[in-house]
């Protein structure tokens, strides 16, 4: 029988037993809805965690240091140690790092203590330089006001707690000016130290000069973007990275570098290399190590997290599939009942020339139609459940004075997978009834009353 005819006959048969077919389809829909709801919860939670962690800069970042920097924390370099091959983390190295594949940007962290004067009152805090790329990585989602108008804009974004220190109405600060007082580092000319061959022969010192900078407050953020490892520490006053660099503010590492050999070139204490994605960090890290630098990343932690979510998703899949398994039994039951009811009809079909495979296909199509519609409705139900739960969660979060969040995510591939799975499961459920119907002896079937 042709596919079109099979489809027509199958739909007709389902329509004839509309209540039973609908209930069976609803059973499949509930099963699929359960699966979709659980999986979308897993995916949503994973996306939420990944987004937060990604925004923190923990997992797509490699911190590059000179090898001796790390070693010097443990023990002095020896003749056999790799320190003798260590490269300087200077401008040339920075450019080389920028040329590595899958590297988005390379920048030096600028973070320094400062005194902020606002409305005549001094406040101590930490200034952190923020790269322009941070605007697009979600760190500044939900900002009050706006991000910096440009990489060289003399503007500041305040962390909410610091803003609360400045004013009881933080939002009123936007558009106001504040003054940052900081210590500028001014390089001194190199001095000969005396004995030839001395390690400090070319080392230059620096002097500290107090400076002030007026900045306009353009935004306030709830969280500390990129706080912690690979980020900008506990910076509570954020300014564009290029502005921060141009201030030449004295940093903690300056004291250490003042007594180090740098051959007169400026040397970065460390550089932050940002990868296109967390999965590319390992390759970049290997390449940087081959260049002779020390690296540090939380790639392993990312892997563990990924494994955790894979297992979590699998458990949710199994849990969600239980309802689908029950629905499968419903399909088997419906089709077996259909065989009993349509036994004579099957006999007539065979007497009129239906082959075993025609009868089998007819039942398969009926099963897959129920599976398809069950899948489609199930995805819809699952999505609705997700929306309802999200709504409930957000009401609760609002009462707890926490920002709203979306813990359910139904990506297109989940929609597709759920419908395909529903059809496949229905076909599997139809295997036994279809095979039984196909094997019916036409003479016996025709005798059935």
């Amino acid at each position, binding site marked *: 029988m042709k596919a079109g005819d099979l489809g027509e006959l199958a739909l*007709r048969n389902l329509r004839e037993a509309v209540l039973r077919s609908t209930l069976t389809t609803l059973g499949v829909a509930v099963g699929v809805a359960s699966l979709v709801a659980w999986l979308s919860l897993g995916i949503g939670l994973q996306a939420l965690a990944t987004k937060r962690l990604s925004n923190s800069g923990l997992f797509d970042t490699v911190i590059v240091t000179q090898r001796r920097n790390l070693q010097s924390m443990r023990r002095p370099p020896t003749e056999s140690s790799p320190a003798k091959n260590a490269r300087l983390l200077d401008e040339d190295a920075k450019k080389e790092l920028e040329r590595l594949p899958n590297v988005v940007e390379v920048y030096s962290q600028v973070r320094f203590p400062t005194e902020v004067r606002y409305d005549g009152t001094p406040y101590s805090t930490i200034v952190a330089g923020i790269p322009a790329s941070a605007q697009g990585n979600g760190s500044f989602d939900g900002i009050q006001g706006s991000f910096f108008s440009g990489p060289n804009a003399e503007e500041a974004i305040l962390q909410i707690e610091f803003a609360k220190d400045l004013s009881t109405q933080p939002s009123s600060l936007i558009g106001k000016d504040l003054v940052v007082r900081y210590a500028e580092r001014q390089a001194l000319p190199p001095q000969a130290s005396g004995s030839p061959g001395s390690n400090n022969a070319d080392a230059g010192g620096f002097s500290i000069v107090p400076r002030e900078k007026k900045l306009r407050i353009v935004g306030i953020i709830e969280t500390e973007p990129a706080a912690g490892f690979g980020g900008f520490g506990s910076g509570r006053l954020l300014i564009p990275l290029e502005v921060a660099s141009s201030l030449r503010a004295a940093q903690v590492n300056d004291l250490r570098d003042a007594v180090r050999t740098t051959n007169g070139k400026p040397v970065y204490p460390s550089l932050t290399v940002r990868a296109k994605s967390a999965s590319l960090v390992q390759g970049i890290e290997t390449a940087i190590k081959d260049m002779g630098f020390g690296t540090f990343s939380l790639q392993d932690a990312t892997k563990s997290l990924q494994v955790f979510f894979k297992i979590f998703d699998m458990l949710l899949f199994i849990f969600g599939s239980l309802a689908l398994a029950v629905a499968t039994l419903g399909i088997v039951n419906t089709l077996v009942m259909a065989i009993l009811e349509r036994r004579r009809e099957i006999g007539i*079909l065979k007497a*009129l*020339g239906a082959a*075993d495979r025609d009868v089998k296909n007819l039942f398969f199509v009926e099963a897959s139609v129920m599976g398809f519609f069950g899948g489609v409705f199930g995805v819809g139900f699952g999505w609705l459940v997700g929306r309802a739960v999200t709504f409930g969660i957000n009401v609760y979060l609002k009462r707890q004075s926490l920002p709203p969040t979306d813990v359910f995510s139904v990506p297109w591939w989940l929609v597709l997978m759920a419908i395909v799975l529903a059809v496949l499961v229905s076909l599997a459920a139809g295997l036994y009834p279809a095979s039984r119907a196909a094997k019916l002896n036409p003479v016996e079937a025709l005798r059935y009353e």
Partner: protein
Amino acid sequence: MTTGDGMAVRAEQVSRHYEMGSAVIRAVDDVTLQIRAGEFVALLGSSGSGKSTLLNLMAGLDRPTGGAIFANGRNLSELSSLELARYRSRTVGMVFQSFNLLPRMTLEENVELPLRLAEVDRAERGGRVQEALERVHLENRLTHRPSELSGGEQQRAALARALVNRPTLLFADEPTGNLDSATGESIMLLLKEIQQKLGMTIVMVTHERPLAERFADRIAALADGKLLTDGVKS
């Protein structure tokens, strides 16, 4: 189509035995019967004589446990399940005592069903259905369901369904069994007309000797699964 010797169907020492526990039921036992193309043969016998079983074997609905049935030039016992289905679809038309129309379908849909199974093009089907229904004078009842028809009309509809694929063999199992004598006679007249106009071979099972004698060219009488007489019309 014939078996090559002018025979439409040839049964050679055909048996159909059923095992019921330790007992063996010999529904058809060593029957040899030859039916010529275009012939109207009545299989006559009382209930349990094996006439319907023999008809089912010749129609390809069942397989013999012994002997061979040749139709359409081939031994039906050697056909695969799919080939046997094709034989039923393209060579055979069947009419049953209880009509066996699908109650959920209209007359048109019932008659179209064999065309669907034979994978006849959709464009051709309408004409074929109309032609078959005209032949049994039901062309105005296309949209009626079987429950809206009388017994005679239902049997005529079943006859239209049997004819729609233009088979060469028509098997009728007690076609008048559920009808009153007048309606039964009209059905028999219709069968005779079809045989004469289309040159179709008809094998009819009946237990009514007068009906068989009046309309059949030949009578094969069975009793206890055995062929008693062949060709005798008293």
